[in-house]
């Protein structure tokens, strides 16, 4: 599990004040094969990680599952974002945040890659590091332009661990692909959502996030699985009535 990883847990404990909450019960499927073998799995569960101000305002969100490496990289960006939005003062936080989401949405649309927050700029004339380094949001070159460069490091999502077991490797590839989709398609949708919503608390954004971006409508008792469960099932009407 992600939070059992030493580096992820340490980063969260060091950089954030963390809390978790359940948005609803997760569907659990249990198949009893009748020979003593029972398989239990969750179905259609989904997750989201928010970074918020001390006042509880949402700054950014990661939705869906991630490789540990990419999750860690994003956590570090989130920590920088919390400083970035207050650089011009707390009263300008809303403006800074909106601008951030606009830049990110555009970067993902045009480059397929998010802009990054960088900081630690020195006062070159006096060769002195500014106590609170200025953070700047930089657009990274599109992937095609980077291909020709030698020694270009793969993005955290692309770095694969050394896995010899074919099942582990297959699972890793699925996770890596999920991460890629979450980092591109979903992050772009999230930036569009947060650009419009402004500074809001999580409860205002949770339902639209799950319904429109994660495609898991929290108000649907079957979490979008109704069609799959009941189509062509001869006793569907009875089931629905009894539920």
């Amino acid at each position, binding site marked *: 599990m992600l939070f059992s990883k030493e580096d992820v847990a340490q980063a969260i404990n060091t950089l954030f004040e963390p*809390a978790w909450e*359940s*948005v609803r019960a997760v569907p659990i499927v249990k198949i009893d094969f009748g020979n003593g073998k029972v398989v239990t799995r969750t179905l259609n569960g989904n997750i989201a990680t928010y970074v918020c101000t001390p006042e509880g305002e949402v*700054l950014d969100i990661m939705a869906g599952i991630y490789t540990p490496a990419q999750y860690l990289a994003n956590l570090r960006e989130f*920590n920088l974002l*919390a400083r970035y939005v207050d650089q011009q003062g707390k009263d300008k936080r809303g403006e800074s945040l909106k601008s951030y989401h606009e830049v990110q949405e555009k970067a993902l649309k045009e480059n397929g890659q998010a802009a990054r927050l960088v900081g630690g700029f020195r006062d070159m004339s006096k060769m002195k590091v500014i106590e609170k380094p200025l953070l700047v949001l930089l657009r990274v070159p599109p992937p095609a332009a980077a291909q020709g460069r030698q020694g270009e490091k793969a993005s955290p999502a692309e770095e694969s661990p050394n896995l010899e077991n074919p099942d582990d490797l297959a699972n890793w590839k699925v996770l890596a692909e999920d991460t890629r989709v979450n980092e591109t398609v979903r992050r772009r949708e999230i930036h569009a959502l947060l650009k419009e919503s402004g500074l809001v608390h999580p409860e205002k954004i949770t339902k639209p996030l799950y319904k429109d971006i994660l495609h898991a409508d929290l108000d649907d008792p079957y979490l979008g699985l109704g069609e799959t469960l009941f189509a062509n099932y001869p006793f569907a009407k009875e089931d629905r009535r009894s539920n």
Partner: protein
Amino acid sequence: MWSRKRILGVISIVVIGSFLLMGVIAGSVMGDDAKFDNTPVSVVKNPGIRADVGKTVAIEPPTKAIVAAKSATVIESQNPKVMPGKVKWHSNFSDACAASKKSGKPVLLFQMMGKLDNQFC
């Protein structure tokens, strides 16, 4: 030879039965109207009968304790509790925000379906 569990079970039944019998007898002494009256019997109203105020304090607890201690174990949940990773989670979002105001660190809110401290989540 009877097992200890069986012996204690029989004793519990006898004790409970005795109390029920006492209740029936007390009810018949109080009269028809009082049988359906849930309010404690007033000493002033029925000076010969002691008020039934010690029932929940003195009479029931020992019986309940015996039954609870010797009953079959409750079947464990199908979704057992586990440690929610190595992160030091605050109890809730509000507590995390309060801590954030003191520490200056931003809040990280992890949302999920199911519970992080359940095996299947």
